[in-house]
């Protein structure tokens, strides 16, 4: 099971009976759940750093679930959202999914169906958070590299071998290899292949912003 113990399922529904029944279902399989009786109650206690997923009802007084979903998107909130509704239609499902919901479930649903969806949302959240931790720590380590190591890194990202790097920087292959080893060690990465895997998406994202 890849679910880490501190993951929480945030249940947002204005119907107490629904909240309680989902919470009970989740606790029966060892998942931690927390209930909110309105979109605003959740927004007012927003803790983006807490891992987990959101189970969100559409039809609620004051602020609907879909409005809350858009607000969370605007805030850059990445926790996966599962939308549940008793009064859904196709356009509503399309809107919720296009807004990034991981699922749109109609009541009445089978309990196992909801549990499967929640488990997959929790896995997705864990993966996203793991990735951003790796990138954050890479960012910190990148700052520790020497000027020469950064040059070597640029060549490595272009897929060059130690020999080619040595020629490009007019240093001996042994020195180039030493720089290569040192910088991988500093970044906590085991191979050049893994380095490209971690750094390439980050680079592309930086270009986007």
């Amino acid at each position, binding site marked *: 099971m890849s679910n880490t113990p501190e993951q929480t399922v945030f249940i947002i529904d204005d119907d107490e009976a629904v909240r309680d029944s989902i919470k009970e279902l989740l606790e029966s399989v060892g998942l931690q759940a927390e209930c909110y009786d309105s979109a605003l109650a959740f927004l007012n206690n927003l803790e983006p750093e807490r891992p987990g997923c959101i189970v969100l009802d559409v039809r609620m007084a004051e602020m609907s679930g879909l409005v809350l979903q858009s607000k969370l998107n605007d805030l850059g909130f990445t926790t996966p959202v599962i939308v549940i509704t008793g009064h859904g239609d196709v356009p509503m499902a*399309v809107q919720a999914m296009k807004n990034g919901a991981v699922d749109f479930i109609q009541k009445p649903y089978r309990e196992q169906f909801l549990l499967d969806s929640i488990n997959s949302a929790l896995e997705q959240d864990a993966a996203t958070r793991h990735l951003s931790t790796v990138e954050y720590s890479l960012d910190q380590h990148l700052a520790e590299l020497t000027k020469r190591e950064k040059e070597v890194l640029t060549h490595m990202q272009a897929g060059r071998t130690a020999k080619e790097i040595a020629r490009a920087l007019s240093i001996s292959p042994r020195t180039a290899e030493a720089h290569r080893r040192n910088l991988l060690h500093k970044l906590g990465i085991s191979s050049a292949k893994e380095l490209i895997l971690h750094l390439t998406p980050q680079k592309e994202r930086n270009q986007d912003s």
Partner: protein
Amino acid sequence: MACHTVFIISNEAAIRDVLVELVVAAGLHAVTLSSLKACLEALRSESHCCLVLDGGIDDKLEPDRQVNFASVCSKIPVLVLTERGDIPTAVHAIRQGALDVIQKPLQHESILERIKSVVAANIIC
């Protein structure tokens, strides 16, 4: 150059006929295909603007067809037609990358508007 080809896939002759008629009346070129696989092949050779796909994307279908559906969605805007109220199919379609889901029975005006707006958005391809 503008792309005018609208691919159409449906098992129902009546739906195919209506869609072809609408597309042609809008001054676009309609090509009916028999399967997603045929669509993937057609994408290689024909310039295209969108696919209108009627059914055949149930998530309980064989894996091959799922792969083809996701693959087509990544290459061309796809408008999926579903039965009224078929939320599971709509959810599945968007998750796999479909552009939009349109419920049957078809409203001629609205489906034509939708196709035209896709064509306008993809004028260069």
